[in-house]
């Protein structure tokens, strides 16, 4: 009986030991994992996979595995995995997600990335004097419009492409009278589109410094300058500037609302819109021959800075602090930041890149668009960061619910909106 037990025990131990023996390593086979969220944009998928394959070629024995998520699902997965010491080696982040920095989940990238390849302004906010994310995408907040409709309404764009407050209001009224929706916009599934117009107008009125202070709760929304802008925007809203289904229209649907279903005059959106617009029409892109124009956001009376514009850094990547393959992860990031890749980004994804691409002239079917975009950037001063991105906690929720949705949606008066915003933003820090 005892020998029986003994032999089975021995057998068990033996089997376990054998099972635990590592397979003979021929050479170090390393897999680095990457999480990203751009699964529904084939051009970006191709771009990242290309970078992955380059890294694999340059470092034999390395596998780069990219897992694709949808954005909020990816955030949920990251926020669950990282505190448990898990998670991918490299992952997508956006610059506002500074909590990853303060909680120590990502590595500082100052010494790991070749920063010469990145535009200087895109190096993003420094926390503790270090840079933590590598930017890929940049965008400016623009106001696109339909040239043909503008002409039909009998308006001409001034030489600096900027209407005054009164001109803009008149334009909106005339447009609505002609039965066309002046501004295509929808906040059904995003917390920022509705705030573009009022945000840029506030930026113009207050200038770079004070606009930042407003976002961080240091200036009250009842300030006379802020109220002047809000009252003007309320006039626009009351004149029917936005679509009737503004509150529930989805971002994707607002694109086609602008083009032809039912077609609108203007479309305030980040310049990443082009990534979708230049896709084939059968995949939701702009119809061929659409007269796309770009105008500046209206000039506000007695403004501090009518040539100010919001710029944003979009997609960025970070390296997990718990990674075991730091250099390979950095290699992946660097591969995506070469000038060639930057050029490829612009030419296939049609978005501005944070990578330096040199002064290569634009070619291809969309050259005229990029030329016009370039025009609109001349002489502009930039404010980095969108309100809904730059604010925190309750204030951010209030921007999403009030300035983005309820106020342009006509649900609250300017005064009530200012009070709600103050409760969430101004009071908190006072």
């Amino acid at each position, binding site marked *: 009986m005892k020998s029986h037990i003994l032999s089975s025990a021995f057998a068990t131990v033996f089997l376990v030991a054998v099972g635990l023996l590592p397979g003979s390593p021929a050479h170090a086979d390393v897999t680095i994992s990457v999480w990203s969220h751009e699964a529904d*944009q084939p051009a970006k998928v191709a771009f990242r996979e290309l970078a992955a394959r380059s890294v694999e070629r340059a470092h034999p024995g390395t596998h780069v595995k990219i897992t694709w998520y949808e954005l909020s699902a990816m955030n949920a997965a990251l926020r*669950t*995995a990282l505190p448990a010491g898990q998670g991918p080696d490299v992952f997508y982040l956006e610059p506002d997600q500074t909590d990853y920095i303060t909680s120590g989940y990502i590595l500082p990238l100052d010494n790991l990335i070749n920063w010469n390849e990145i535009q200087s302004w895109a190096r993003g906010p420094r926390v503790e004097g270090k840079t933590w994310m590598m930017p890929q995408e940049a965008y400016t907040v623009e106001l696109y419009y339909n040239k043909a409709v503008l002409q039909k309404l009998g308006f001409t764009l001034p030489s600096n492409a900027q209407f005054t407050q009164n001109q803009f209001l008149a334009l909106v009224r005339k447009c609505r009278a002609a039965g066309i929706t002046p501004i295509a916009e929808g906040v059904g599934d995003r917390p920022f589109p509705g705030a573009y117009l009022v945000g840029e107008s506030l930026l113009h009125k207050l200038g770079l410094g004070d606009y930042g202070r407003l976002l961080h709760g240091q200036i009250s929304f009842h300030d006379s300058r802020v109220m002047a802008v809000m009252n003007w925007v309320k006039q626009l809203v009351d004149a029917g500037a936005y679509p009737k289904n503004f509150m529930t229209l989805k971002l994707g649907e607002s694109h086609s609302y602008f083009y032809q279903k039912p077609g609108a005059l203007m479309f305030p959106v980040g310049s990443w819109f082009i990534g979708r617009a230049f896709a084939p029409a*059968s995949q939701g892109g702009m119809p061929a021959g659409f007269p796309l124009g770009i105008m500046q956001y209206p000039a506000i009376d007695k403004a501090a800075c009518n040539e100010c514009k919001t710029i944003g850094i979009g997609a960025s990547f970070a390296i997990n602090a718990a990674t075991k393959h730091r250099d390979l992860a950095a290699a992946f990031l660097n591969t995506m930041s070469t000038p060639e890749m930057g050029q490829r980004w612009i030419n296939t994804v049609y978005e501005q890149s944070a990578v330096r691409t040199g002064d290569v002239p634009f070619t291809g079917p969309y050259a005229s668009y990029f030329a016009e975009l370039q025009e609109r950037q001349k002489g502009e001063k930039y404010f980095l960061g969108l309100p809904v991105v730059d604010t925190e906690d309750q204030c951010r929720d209030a921007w999403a619910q009030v300035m983005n949705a309820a106020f342009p949606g006509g649900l609250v008066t300017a005064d009530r909106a200012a009070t709600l915003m103050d409760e969430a933003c101004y009071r908190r820090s006072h």
Partner: protein
Amino acid sequence: MSFEIRKYAFGRMPRYVGSPDGGGVHLLAAVGGPRFRARRLPLMIFVLLYTILAGGPLVWVAMMSIRTTPEILDNPYALPSIIHWEKFASAWIDSNYGTYFWNSIMAVAGAVCLLTMIGAMAAHCLARYRFRGAGLVRFAILSGMVLPPQLLILSLFQILIGYGLYNSLTGLILVYVSSQLGMTLYILEGFFAQIPQDLFDAARMDGYGDMDIFLRITIPVGLPAIITTMMLNLVILWNEFLFAVVLLTDDDKRTLPLGTMHFIGGHQLDIGMVATGLMIAIVPVLLLYAFFSETMIRGMTAGALR
């Protein structure tokens, strides 16, 4: 045995309304037969309206599943002009729905089986036996039910790492079991507690052991509740998203609800493909239900206690 149980319990043959088909007969005679009666017109109108309300969206989704997204955005309600069967192939292969489908089956079938077995045993125990701490057990179960899974998942994750079950279907199955166990126990215990104690006393006097009693009395007589919980768990877990997306990071381990992530993106919603994905997810379960609904209802009336 089950027949004898019932006979013993009631002292006579139970005379309920009978088979699901026979059931309506009495009412039918009362209401005047299948021939058209003016009195039934409001009923029929209501039935028709509700059928449109309940079935309409599914028909709409089915239509959308064979049209492309631009076609849909162009005219949401039109009938398909060209039938795009290739979308299903594209979803199955390119968007990996094939893999997700089998993973879903394994995860959900495994979880539902475990839940039924474990839940029935524990419910039987709580209903039949008095022991110290039974109240505490009930309270613990209830508390697990009411805390939001959105929070629990963070600690749950750390546990799975500790057990080496992260990113595995086994881990997901166990998490599903733990998340639904509370509700399952709640339903089953409430029902099992109603079974007349005399049945058990009789069986014990006949010399049956505890396990026998459980298998031969509780389960057949408790079948309605068991089927109810199986159905509820199946429906809830088949569409479960949050746990699956956080706990499975390998694409080949993902389940069906995660497939929609391929089509819901930052800038656009590919409604056509989402519809196709839904048809892949819903048709098998629908067929399952259609074939088994008769059996299910029989099962649910089989152990009737009245």
